[in-house]
């Protein structure tokens, strides 16, 4: 079947489609087990705290750095683009809305897909190929409850918190860059920031953060959990986890924009 598939593109496409359907099915089963494991607080509770620290606290420096640069660049680009055409206060609108609606959640999620997603896939992949996950099962522990549920819960809890920090740092750094390099004042920036700002923008930012937090932990968990083939397999799983979770984040970003804006 596989040999013929190499010769016939249609068969090859069908093989890919079947593989994809199998992945979707297995992913669905894993998520069902994650939900089922929610009753087992004694197992996943302590692990969730450890993962929340790893995903949340340890990611703070990189999130601060990325969002600070994003805010600065937004202010400088807006200044360059609108010099002499519109009032300076528009820079405040552009920085605030861009950070809240797009850059804060998306940049944070993409950075975390690399940092957190790779770590999750490598950890679980290594545990799979060294039979540590099998060992958990033989020791009467549910590996989903012990390994997967805490990581997904920690992602769902901590990514929204990180995005709050990212939004705040991005807007503050954008404001500092604007008043420091452009002929505008803090009052101009605040006036612009208030102009198009709606309470829903904050909710939208957090809804996206929650969806991204689930995606950037659930996808690497699935890929790492099903890794095969020794060290090479773990490497492959790690790369695939980062790519797949990044694509998932961009896909969700588009879907949420279409549905909620």
């Amino acid at each position: 079947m596989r040999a013929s598939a190499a010769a016939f593109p249609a068969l090859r496409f069908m093989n890919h489609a079947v593989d994809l359907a199998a992945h979707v099915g297995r992913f669905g089963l894993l998520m069902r087990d994650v939900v089922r494991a929610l009753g087992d607080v004694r197992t996943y509770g302590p692990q969730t705290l450890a993962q929340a620290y790893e995903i949340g606290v340890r990611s703070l420096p990189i999130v601060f750095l990325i969002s600070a640069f994003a805010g600065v660049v937004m202010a400088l680009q807006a200044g360059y683009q609108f010099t002499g055409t519109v009032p300076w206060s528009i820079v405040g609108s552009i920085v605030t809305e861009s950070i809240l609606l797009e850059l804060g959640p998306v940049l944070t999620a993409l950075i975390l897909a690399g940092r957190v997603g790779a770590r999750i896939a490598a950890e679980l992949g290594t545990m799979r190929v060294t039979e540590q996950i099998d060992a958990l099962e033989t020791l009467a522990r549910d590996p989903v409850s012990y390994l997967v549920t805490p990581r997904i819960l920690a992602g769902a809890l901590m990514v929204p918190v990180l995005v709050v920090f990212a939004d705040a740092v991005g807007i503050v750094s954008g404001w500092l860059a604007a008043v420091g390099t452009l002929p505008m004042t803090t009052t101009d920036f605040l006036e612009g920031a208030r102009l198009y700002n709606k309470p829903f923008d904050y909710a939208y930012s957090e809804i996206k953060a929650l969806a991204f937090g689930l995606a950037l932990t659930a996808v690497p968990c699935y890929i790492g959990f099903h890794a095969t083939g020794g060290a090479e397999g773990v490497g492959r799983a790690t790369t695939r986890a980062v790519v797949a979770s990044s694509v998932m984040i961009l896909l969700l970003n588009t879907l949420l924009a279409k549905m909620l804006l």
Partner: protein
Amino acid sequence: MIEIRNLRKWLGGSAVLAGVDLTVREGETAVVIGGSGAGKSVLLKHIVGLLKPDEGEVWVDGERVADLDRQGLARLRGKIGYVFQGSALFDSMTVAENIAMGCIGPDGRPAVGRPAPEEIARCLRIVNLDPSVMHLMPAELSGGMRKRVGIARAVACPRRYLLYDEPTTGLDPMTADVINRLIVDLDDRLGVTSVVVTHDMKTAFAVGDWIALLHEGTIRWSGSAEEMSHAEDPIVRGFLEGRADLLAV
């Protein structure tokens, strides 16, 4: 008692097990030998329910493993200690924490609370390790020590069965001998029923009450160590003498 009836398993499109029949009675130590990729580990994983048979049945203490629900499996696993080929110690935990993971109640649920250090020390002494290693991480242990910690974890609570997957693979002959003696000693002291899969003939002769040869997915030969030394089956002779030309028959 462990009973395996006509067990068949296909993996990656080929039949790894093609109708295995095996019965291990109470208190026995059975050794299953076979070449690399013969399906020995696959056979062992069926006993503890890590794999489900494509055909055939595995029975442990009168229960069909494939029929057990989640709780039934947990209860079954509470009775079985499993020693993995690569030890499968949890990298992020100390030796003491690894051993504590082996503490399972009779209902198959993990024991509540951490075991006392004296209890961990007792488990380490069973496998002839100094209790001072309990604070080390698995990465700080030698291969032989890792195997012994793996065994200590498997016997951290009372078990009826011990399954050993290649317990001496990758060890030097002296350490392998220590592990072999440990398996015999544990069987005597704890009165457990054991299944050892290995391709190390020294281990097979040292620990087994009887030996079965798994070849091309079926049990090709079985008998005592004494009977094996005089067996005329060319595959058995190939294993005994380490001759690939006989194995190719």
